[in-house]
């Protein structure tokens, strides 16, 4: 069946299909263009190529089990999605999260925001021909992901922020890797500024291209860096502060014209603020209690002795490893039962521990929030990431809806490119940071 655009097209115009898989686009996203020469008369956007049924799947998963699915929404900053979901649940369950867990959450979220902005701008610059910027930014991102990897064990889909706290304490030597990451990112940002800020080619392709007015941006429900590039001051971290953001010192950078260059510039300045936030929160986080690795016997020795009877001594293991996290739990997870996986020491060694473990995971007895619906949102890389959860009192959400910032931003894409040239599509699309995972869910 012909689309609306094809039906209404002028007979003398040319129809051109762009995407869903196109070398100049990072993401599966299709645009039908009606062209008169190089000029775009009309455009029609088609999305949904990455639809995975996230919301339907969540209705069939327990509250605990659906957390990994939230990683895969905005896969460049998974921790912020985790946080949005975990905090929506905490709002519903009325939990208090330990101070240290909150500090770690801020640290992880700002690292994720940095990697999100770096990815977006790196790809945008590459599509405009500045390939070195892409490589520099990917380099900086690796340093940030080092910190994340040391702590969570994985680079992208971390499932690290849990309902009630975080999964593990910060890895050994995190302070050093955070310091390196900040230093390297600052260096890259300085280089990129030198390469792009006054670059004639970059300016020609981004200045006054894809311009959005603040009124239209609000009418489209834009949030995040894209909204702020039009000059509207709305940041969830400032407007509805969560975690420790009301106690930390940071600014909200604003743009003036709402064009591609402003979206680039707002993201660049936001990264500087994120680095400031990381420095502040890293100074706040106290060093952990004396670590447990020093005392205890070697694991191999424990196994050998354990053949006859359970050794009485402590085993020398990382305190974050399953089976030795009981001492870490009070610092990083809420004490309110039963929203946290019982520590494995208890599960493996005591009858009561085993029972509580089964009760947590068995059908119908895990996390059961009271009846009602809740909306909670956090500031993601792209804007307001909101979770709307309807609970019917069972252990599975009756309905879970994600407010994806990308969805609202991309809805305006047709109007942004209308009347422009075909070549303007790529920088405009790049500056909007389309993430298929959260757009199509």
């Amino acid at each position, binding site marked *: *069946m012909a689309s609306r655009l094809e039906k209404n097209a002028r007979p003398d115009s040319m129809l051109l299909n762009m995407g869903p898989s196109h070398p100049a686009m990072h993401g599966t996203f299709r645009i039908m263009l009606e062209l008169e020469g190089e000029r775009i008369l009309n455009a029609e956007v088609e999305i949904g190529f990455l639809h995975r049924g996230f919301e*339907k799947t969540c209705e069939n998963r327990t509250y605990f089990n659906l957390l990994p699915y939230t990683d895969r929404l905005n896969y460049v900053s998974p921790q912020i999605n985790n946080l949005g979901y975990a905090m929506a649940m905490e709002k519903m369950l009325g939990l208090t999260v330990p101070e240290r867990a909150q500090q770690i959450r801020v640290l992880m979220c700002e690292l994720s925001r940095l990697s999100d902005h770096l990815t977006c701008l790196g790809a945008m610059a590459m599509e405009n021909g500045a390939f070195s910027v892409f490589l520099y930014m990917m380099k900086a991102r690796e340093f940030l992901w080092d910190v994340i990897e040391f702590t969570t064990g994985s680079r992208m889909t971390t499932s690290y922020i849990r309902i009630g706290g975080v999964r593990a304490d910060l890895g050994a030597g995190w302070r050093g890797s955070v310091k390196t990451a900040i230093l390297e990112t600052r260096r890259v940002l300085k280089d990129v500024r030198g390469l792009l800020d006054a670059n004639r080619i970059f300016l020609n392709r981004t200045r006054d291209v894809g311009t959005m007015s603040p009124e239209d941006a609000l009418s489209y*429900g834009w949030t995040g860096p894209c909204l702020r590039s039009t000059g509207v001051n709305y940041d969830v971290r400032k407007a*509805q502060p969560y975690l420790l953001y009301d106690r930390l010192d940071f600014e909200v950078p604003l743009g003036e014209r709402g064009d591609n260059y402003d979206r680039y510039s707002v993201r660049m300045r936001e990264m500087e603020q994120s680095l400031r936030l990381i420095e502040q929160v890293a100074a706040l986080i106290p060093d952990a209690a004396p670590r447990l690795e020093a005392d205890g016997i070697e694991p191999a020795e424990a196994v050998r002795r354990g053949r006859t009877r359970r050794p009485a001594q402590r085993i020398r293991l990382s305190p974050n490893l399953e089976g030795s996290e009981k001492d870490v739990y009070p610092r990083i997870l809420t004490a309110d039962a039963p929203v946290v996986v019982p520590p494995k020491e208890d599960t493996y060694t005591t009858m009561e521990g085993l029972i509580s473990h089964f009760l947590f995971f068995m059908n119908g007895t895990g996390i059961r929030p009271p009846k009602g*619906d809740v909306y909670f949102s956090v500031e993601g890389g792209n804007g*307001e990431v909101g979770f*709307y959860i309807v609970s019917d009192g069972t252990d599975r959400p009756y309905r879970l809806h994600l*407010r994806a910032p990308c969805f609202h931003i991309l809805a305006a894409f047709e109007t942004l490119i209308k009347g422009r040239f075909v070549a303007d599509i790529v920088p405009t699309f790049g500056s909007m940071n389309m993430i298929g995972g959260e757009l199509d869910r």
Partner: protein
Amino acid sequence: MDKEDLIDEIRTRFGADVESYAETFGDQTLAVRREGLRALMSALRAAPYDYAVLLDLTCVDYAAVESRFEMVYHLYSLSGNRRLRIKVSLPAENPVVDSLTGLWKNADWLEREAFDMFGVGFIGHPDLRRILMYEGFEGHPLRKSYPWRKEQPLVPMKD
């Protein structure tokens, strides 16, 4: 204006259209009659309420009850820094509601999504068709009557 005063004022002004007011987990929720939705929303969008942003629009399928579908709108006021949730119940046999495309531009895609996922109709929507699913998809996947992991027939390839 105080948050509670504001709700009181809305309730007195639109007394006939506002069915109830509730606060769940600190979120303010107004349940509204289907017929009065558009007028109420267009008033809420303007001063003095100034809910200028349509944050979110979605639907919930309460399969067991008679008023099966419930539209959920989240509004945000930038000047007052407050959120408001509006709910509208739709009957199972005729789930249609006025479109808000004239008020907010993102309502276009959001309503297409609600139509795609739940089969809810929107009166006055300029181009109501599927958005996330493809043409030729059978049924509406987020309805409770749609089985999880249901298989779909193959559709002919597009040219």
